């Protein structure tokens, strides 16, 4: 069970939180969240010391650098998002802190298991283990923030369930043709119309999870309605895992038929870039704007994958890894401002925040504004923050296989993206503050933001270690 050491540790940790929840006095529930963060951090650190190579379940699961890369990403994202929301959850749902932490841990468990799957049943179970807790988390705020949270949860659930059904249907066709659920078994399938249908269904199902256009409709509604610390998690971690699933099924399993599915990915990438970037422009609501920007980011992510090379996968992994601290950080800053302003009785509420929420942020809290600016610049792909390298690397990967037009499209749309990111930056730096009060940020949230910021800046200045790790991971995927 050596390759699964971390996952077993996580499962044990989740069990511990579940049991501890039963025996914790209501006023001490805060400990559960802290315990969960500690578990995630501990496992993250342990991932650097434990040897998790090898196979388990007679080859249904294979460990190695590829899996480890995603495990670390998921653990880090879970820890940061949980840490950032610690106070918020304790305040809003004091009795349900244990549940909240448990759901996050379960979802992370699904994410750590998924990339190692070499069996389709294993894959889909891990995929659902990741997805189902997210539905619960999305509806957490239904009793206090009104209809938006219920809508968010329901949309995520219905779309999620539908996409699972589509994925399963696609898988059933593939498995039916191959007669085995093993990835190695489907690799040798000859191309047939039925397999083609199966592959298209799989792309659609996973596209829903990733929020790739035209399957992105749920993204803005869910982001808007769900509680912001949760959205910070939802907007990054499942994306990385969705990417892992795509690579496992297509690049590893169905690599013989790349001539069929690569053009589909290329088209989806271009479409996602267009839809995400263009629809983000008119959004007055911050969370919806960031949701569409997140859709656009998936377009860049797919671009690396659409290159179809191992190098392209490596660049995509790098992209996903930099996207985690960047987008998580952005949403945590949104959360910090939201929380500070929510004491105001005239406050418009979590789901109704417009860009003007950030008016004069630079004067209310210079550090928070700087963090916000750097995260936005990273999303826009500006040098010396992580996003620049990420965007450049996927461009390079796509260029090398002759997708020049896609690179041009991406580069031009990056300028469009800069327009709306600068709109947010303008509110923070140029506009006068709407509220004169300063901004109090609780220590846990501040710490989470600082960690994200450090990651974004350090990767931006010195991308090499992460790039090397991503390349090693990509090479180990096969």
């Amino acid at each position, binding site marked *: 069970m050596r390759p699964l050491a971390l996952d077993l540790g996580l499962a044990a940790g989740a069990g511990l939180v579940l049991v501890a929840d039963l025996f914790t006095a209501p006023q001490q529930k805060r400990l559960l969240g802290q315990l969960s963060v500690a578990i995630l951090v501990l496992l993250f650190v342990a991932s650097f010391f434990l040897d998790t190579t090898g196979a388990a379940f007679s080859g249904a699961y294979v460990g190695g650098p590829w899996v480890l890369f995603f495990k670390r990403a998921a653990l880090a994202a879970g820890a940061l998002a949980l840490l950032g929301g610690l106070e918020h959850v304790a305040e809003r749902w004091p009795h349900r802190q244990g549940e909240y932490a448990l759901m996050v841990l379960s979802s992370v468990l699904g994410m750590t298991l998924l990339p190692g799957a070499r069996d389709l049943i294993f894959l889909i179970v891990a995929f659902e283990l990741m997805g189902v807790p997210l539905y619960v988390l999305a509806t957490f705020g239904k009793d206090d923030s009104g209809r938006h949270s219920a809508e968010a949860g329901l949309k995520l659930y219905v779309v999620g369930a539908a996409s699972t059904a589509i994925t399963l249907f696609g898988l059933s066709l593939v498995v039916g043709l191959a007669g085995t659920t093993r990835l190695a078994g489907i690799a040798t399938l000859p191309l047939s119309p039925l397999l083609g249908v199966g592959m298209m269904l799989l792309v659609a199902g996973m596209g829903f999870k990733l929020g790739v256009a035209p399957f992105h409709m749920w993204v803005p509604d869910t982001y808007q309605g769900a509680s912001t610390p949760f959205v910070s998690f939802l907007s990054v971690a499942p994306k990385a895992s969705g990417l892992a699933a795509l690579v496992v099924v297509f690049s590893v399993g169905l690599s013989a038929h790349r001539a069929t599915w690569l053009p589909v990915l290329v088209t989806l990438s271009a479409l996602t870039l267009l839809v995400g970037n263009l629809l983000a422009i008119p959004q007055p609501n911050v969370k919806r704007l960031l949701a569409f920007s997140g859709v656009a980011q998936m377009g860049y992510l797919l671009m690396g994958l659409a290159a179809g090379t191992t190098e392209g996968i490596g660049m995509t992994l790098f992209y996903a890894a930099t996207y985690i601290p960047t987008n998580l950080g952005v949403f945590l800053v949104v959360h910090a401002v939201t929380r500070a302003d929510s004491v105001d009785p005239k406050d418009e509420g979590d789901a109704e925040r417009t860009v003007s929420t950030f008016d004069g942020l630079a004067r209310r809290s210079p550090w928070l504004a700087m963090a916000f600016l750097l995260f936005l610049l990273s999303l826009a792909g500006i040098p010396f923050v992580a996003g620049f390298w990420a965007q450049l690397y996927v461009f390079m990967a796509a260029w090398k296989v002759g997708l020049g037009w896609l690179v*041009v499209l991406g580069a031009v749309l990056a300028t469009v993206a800069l327009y709306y990111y600068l709109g947010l930056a303008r509110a923070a730096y*140029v506009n006068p503050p709407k509220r004169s009060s300063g901004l109090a940020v609780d220590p846990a949230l501040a710490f989470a933001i600082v960690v994200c910021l450090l990651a974004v800046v350090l990767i931006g200045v010195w991308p090499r270690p992460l790039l090397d790790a991503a390349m090693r991971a990509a090479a180990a995927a096969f």
Partner: protein
Amino acid sequence: MGHLLSLIVLAPMLAAVALLVVREEQRLLTRVVALAGAVASLIGSLVVAFVWDRAKGGLQLAEVYPLVPSLGIALRLAVDGWGVSLLLLTGIIITTGVLASWTVKEREKEFFILLLVLVAGVYGVFVSQDLFVFFLFYEIAVLPMYLLIAIWGSSNAVADAGPFKFVWKAFQIGGREYAAMKLTLMLLIGSAFILVAILAMYQQGGSTFDMGVLGAVKYAPAMQKWVFPLVWIGFGTLAGVFPFHTWSPDGHASAPTAVSMLHAGVLMKLGAFGVMRIGMMMLPDGALAWAPIVGTVAVVNVVYGAMSAMSQKDLKYIIAYSSVSHMGVVMLGAATLTVNGWNGAVYQMFAHGIMTGLFFALVGLVYEKAHTRAVPSMGGFGTVMPGVAAFFTIACLSSLGLPGTAGFVSELLVIFGAWQSAHAWWAIPGVLGAFITALYVLKVTRDIFWGPGPSEHFHDLGDAKRTEWAALWVLGAAIIVFGVWPRLLLDVIDIATGENLGALR
């Protein structure tokens, strides 16, 4: 001397980081730290100019730090003769720019931080010998501009007129936020073109970004013919090439003094430098094929910019359009592909940088005291601000190319170059541009400074003060010194031109 170039780039960066911990209330300390960063880099540039071995030529003071070896990216720094002169220009402009913005009133700390980050990017571009790092610094140099203009820019004067009044109102054309966004987006679309060109060169040049290696690669002529225009448009946008210059008048007119100085004085040169260094030198066949168009468009720049300047009423717009015209001279020199033309182009970068820096510093002073930029409402300021008037006249004389000023040397060289080139007719509009320039700069000087004393409306006018004098003297002296003794810099430029043009043939 081993790390001289990286120190020049780092000095402003370090000053910016140091400013982060300075408290907002420590206003003097903020300025002193910013000035220290600027002066340190200027001293570094001066040292470079002295230690750069004229007998040896070529790229000197090389430094290499591997960044991403697997992709062939490294921080390769080195300067040739062109780089030496442009480093010097940047040092002079940033130092005087900090001195000229001594009186910035709000959010000084952030202002100086952004200014220093920007200038670090500019230095980086001039010293990098790695295509990728070149691009990286280029982006750094462009982006802080958005906040600098949007926050500290001059008032939101929306000049609504004509049948399209409603469009002007809707987009707040002429306002600083409009100008800032326009500038940033136009320049970044330009950089998207550059990125595509760089990727193409990287791909076909053997997967390295080393400009030395890529420069030696003989790209297929067909490829060069489509990559060169990308580089030309990309960098040309920043150089103010017609019709991609429209960000420049709006941007320069709206920007605060130091930013206008830096942007018109140095950043536009960065665009021209990019066209010459990357476009013409690394894609010689493309440059030869496109030179007729590049030169003809440059000629349009010269004349159109000058005529636009003539019809402006706003002092800052006049200077901004004159920059468009003068950058046309640079591009014309580059397009001639002759020794004289290239020497003139680089010398014009230097001369125009100093001159326009002085102009914007003076315009800032006038605006600060008179609270207006409308030329028709001014008059007779010379009696109350004699120093400002004198320096403005010097800048004007250099602008129209009077012998004895730096502007004369460069314009003469460029016109010579144009005459010797395959398109001798370029010289005619070149001279015409200088003539129109003479018309409008002399008119502006007369309208503002000379004539009977100012109306009662301008009761609180005064001459320059303290640090402002320093800025004016440095820039004014540079115009004269480099006009009277051009060899001081021309020798160095000439060495590099000889080598670079030799590589092109």
